[in-house]
């Protein structure tokens, strides 16, 4: 008998209309996996180049988040930090601008999300065609198991057609 699959789709939210709030929430996350992966594909609405895709865990709005970014933008590599934030900066999120067929992709890895011993770390890759590519490491300074997560695009609305999928990866 084959070994069991380990990357399992938990939930998907595909927008059939513009989402004015820019907020996507996954709640009641099963505690049976080892890591989580969130794949977001889509675009925000404003005419600027890009905004942010931010994460909060378990509804925590305290200043318990930080991140470090490595990026290429306009032909230059650079790095910056966000400390003592009330959200975790996951990746940039592409805006529609004048190129409505362009979509940005964000892949957010959340490590050992169900353990109650360590802080929670993330590794996120963002690809914004025509603008930017980036890698971010993030930290939520909490030992609580993650039972819900909220994604927020700060440039709203999120355009119809965007999709957000939460996967679970279970180690042996």
């Amino acid at each position, binding site marked *: 008998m084959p070994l069991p699959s*380990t990357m399992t789709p938990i939930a998907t939210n595909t927008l059939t209309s513009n989402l004015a709030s820019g907020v996507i929430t996954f709640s009641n996350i099963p505690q049976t996996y080892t890591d989580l992966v969130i794949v977001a594909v889509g675009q925000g609405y404003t005419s600027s180049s890009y905004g942010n895709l931010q994460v909060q865990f378990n509804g925590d709005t305290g200043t318990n988040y930080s991140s470090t970014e*490595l990026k290429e933008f306009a032909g230059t590599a650079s*790095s910056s930090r966000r400390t003592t934030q009330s959200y975790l900066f996951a990746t940039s999120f592409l805006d529609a601008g004048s190129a409505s067929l362009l979509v940005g992709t964000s892949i957010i890895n959340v490590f050992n999300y169900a353990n109650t011993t360590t802080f929670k770390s993330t590794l996120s890759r963002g690809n914004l065609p025509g603008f930017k590519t980036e890698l971010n490491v993030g930290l939520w300074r909490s030992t609580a198991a993650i039972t819900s997560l909220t994604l927020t695009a700060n440039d709203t609305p999120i355009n119809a057609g965007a999709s957000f999928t939460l996967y679970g990866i279970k180690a042996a």
Partner: protein
Amino acid sequence: MGSVSLKYKSKSGNLTAPGDVDPGAMIPITTTTLSTNTASVTFSDIPQNYEHLQLRVMARANVLVSVRNITLQINSDTTNNYYRHYVVGTGASAVAGSDAGTVMFLGNATGTDYSSSAFGVSIYDILDYSNTNKYKTVRCIYGQENNTNGQAAFGSGLWKSTNAINSITFTTEGNYSFMQYSHFALYGIKRAGA
């Protein structure tokens, strides 16, 4: 609710009845979570029936620094067959470099200068690991954060050998032990028809 008997997808790829299940392409092989500080972690007897490997690591090293390189040796090869290129974001600038030696520097662990609850995280992809006609390439994204400091990095590694990979050993630069709760998970990525 009654039980459901699951039938796995055959090599022909046919799902023919309700309840048939495609087991997917990413398969967990083995996991090590440290209960005590440990000098090294080795995955041996790696099955050869996958196309690629992925390793997902969360690590902390017993040394008073903020970050420590993780080092890899493949098939216990201790000769000068390892190479690395990297770009790391320090939070202030992007720094690139390369090196070579008897180990592959790739991935990172936090040190004891960080909060005891903060661990470095690394995702390694080892492509075509069982092929005996090519050198082996490893790509890795990794980083660590502690609110006051952090680094994010892309890296690629080369093991200059055509041997199939059947074991991987993780240590830290300077051989400081991995600390309790460090976590190493190995996955196989299947090829079509496997």
